[in-house]
């Protein structure tokens, strides 16, 4: 005879304990419960101490027991680069974006305060700026990218802040001087502002658009918006890789009186004369990460050019992997990223020809993904796959291309745009209650208040 089940009776205290326990369990991902250390004497070299490199240093130092991990990073200061658009827009003070690197470098990791100068992939060796070298068994390339201002005739990062030139990408000083240049233009009371995009993949692809939108906010706040001309010149038909956002931005530019000129790239600048030369690159040069624009093509003769006067110009330089990566055998040999970006499998993030090498962050050849949010998604993949590689196991972790851009559409509002590789770069919203198509105060507040803390958690390998 079976006894009927008695109803479960819980007093209030038991109920609270149960609820608390369930809450805690819900916050713990399965992976964190299963995370264990791997004993190895492998030599792991991480090139670069930016978001990607620092996140990997923290993650690998926790997971690898006995490994000799070296972090190659010459800079003492860590810059929160996603905050530079807010600095250049006058919303943040520059100091807010800086922290000492020492705060994030984990114990047990050898911090090599030297710039990397070369990679000898065949001999598994990294050459350093002081002439010394580091041998490795496993290499994580997290160098970030290089700003190629020199591909615009007459342009150099030192010009930012002078002659009406701004460029949020240049540096934190450059972002500050960009704000000053915009201030000066606004104080002038009228004039023409040119905003440009680059003919290459760029980090934070939304930044050129954000700078335009925040400047429009400031111009509208003067009450004399009509006294200012604003033009946006882009090398291709598109302005942003995510199709819905691309259409939205175009429409919004039209609504806000921004003149769009497509298929033009900034080819030269005359700071003294406040003139910029734009070269018509033709409708075949789409602004996607799959472009095949080569450096040689930047100086073709016989191209159609136009000269534009300006009172303010926002310069977005062409970008590529750093020269020493480009000079190594790790660079893509063919395909859309050849000669310019690191040759990795965009899902496993393992090098396509050197299995002991992984890439993460801005340096990799991927159609999207040059954001700190991408690093957040990539770091656990590289961690898992590097550990699998050390153990000669198949690489199971895959990156879905997740990237995020809090698209600032005005000072005080933004859209939390998150998307990935699949379904034509379809949205991948993290929060079901935040629609990526909506301009919202909460999305702005996340950008203004919460994403920087989340970024530092990523650096510490906690997110």
């Amino acid at each position, binding site marked *: 005879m079976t006894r009927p089940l008695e109803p479960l009776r819980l007093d209030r205290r038991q109920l609270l304990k149960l609820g608390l326990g369930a809450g*805690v369990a819900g916050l713990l991902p399965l992976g964190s419960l299963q995370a264990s250390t791997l004993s190895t004497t492998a030599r792991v070299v991480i090139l670069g101490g930016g978001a990607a490199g620092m996140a990997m240093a923290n993650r690998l130092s926790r997971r690898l027991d006995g490994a000799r991990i070296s972090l190659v990073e010459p800079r003492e200061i860590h810059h929160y680069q996603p905050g530079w658009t807010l600095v250049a827009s006058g919303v943040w003070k520059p100091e807010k974006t800086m922290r000492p690197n020492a705060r994030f470098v984990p114990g047990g990791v050898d911090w090599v305060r030297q710039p990397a100068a070369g990679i000898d992939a065949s001999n598994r060796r990294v050459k350093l700026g002081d002439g010394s070298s580091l041998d490795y068994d496993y290499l994580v390339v997290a160098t970030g990218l290089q700003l190629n201002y020199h591909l615009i005739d007459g342009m150099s990062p030192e010009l930012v802040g002078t002659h009406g030139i701004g460029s949020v990408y240049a540096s934190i000083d450059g972002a500050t001087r960009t704000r000053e240049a915009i201030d000066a233009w606004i104080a002038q009371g009228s004039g023409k502002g040119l905003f440009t995009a680059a003919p290459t993949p760029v980090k934070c692809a939304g930044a050129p658009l954000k700078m335009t939108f925040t400047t429009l906010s400031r111009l509208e706040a003067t009450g004399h918006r009509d006294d200012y001309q604003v033009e946006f010149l882009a090398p291709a038909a598109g302005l942003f890789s995510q199709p819905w956002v691309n259409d939205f931005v175009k429409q919004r530019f039209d609504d806000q009186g921004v003149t769009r000129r497509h298929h033009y790239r900034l080819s030269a600048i005359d700071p003294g004369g406040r003139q910029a030369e734009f070269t018509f690159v033709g409708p075949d040069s789409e602004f996607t990460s799959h472009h095949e624009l080569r450096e040689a093509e930047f100086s073709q003769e016989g191209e159609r050019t136009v000269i534009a006067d300006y009172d303010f110009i926002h310069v977005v330089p062409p970008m590529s992997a750093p020269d020493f990566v480009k000079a190594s055998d790790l660079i893509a040999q063919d395909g859309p990223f050849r000669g310019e970006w690191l040759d990795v499998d965009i899902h496993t993030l393992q090098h396509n020809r050197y299995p002991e090498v992984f890439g993460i962050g801005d340096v990799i050849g991927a159609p999207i993904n040059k954001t700190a949010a991408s690093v957040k998604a990539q770091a656990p993949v590289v961690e898992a796959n590097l550990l699998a590689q050390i153990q000669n196991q198949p690489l199971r972790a895959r990156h879905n291309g997740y990237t995020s851009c809090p698209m600032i559409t005005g000072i005080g509002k933004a859209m939390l745009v998150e998307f990935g590789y699949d379904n034509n770069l379809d949205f991948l919203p993290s929060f079901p209650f*935040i629609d990526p198509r909506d301009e*919202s105060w*909460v999305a702005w507040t996340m950008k*203004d208040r919460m994403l*920087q803390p989340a970024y*530092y958690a990523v650096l510490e390998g906690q*997110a």
Partner: protein
Amino acid sequence: MTIQGVLTILMYALAPFLWLIVVGVSLLAAIQLVARLRGYKALYYRCLGANLAALSVGLSGLWWIPFFTHSRLAYVATTFDWVALVGAMFGLTIAAWLVLHPLSYLLRGNRKQLPTTKLKLS
């Protein structure tokens, strides 16, 4: 995300305002403590002025909460924006009430305190 990750994010987010949080919580705790030592009981003391003042502080959040985030009320647009803002205002009202209500008791004495014994009898 791990609990440690959540705590790390919170730590970095709150760090710039830690002094303000400490001052605010200390003030709240001190006023509550002193008032209770002098016989204050939240449910038995009535003060319309303190209630209205707390409500005003909460409502003032309509202006300064967006301002605090370098934004403005006009950009509070989506349903979730409003849920978040109203939630913040509600929290602000409660915090203000927890300070202003016992403070009023301390400033005015216990003239408006309902007799506990009478309440118990009823």
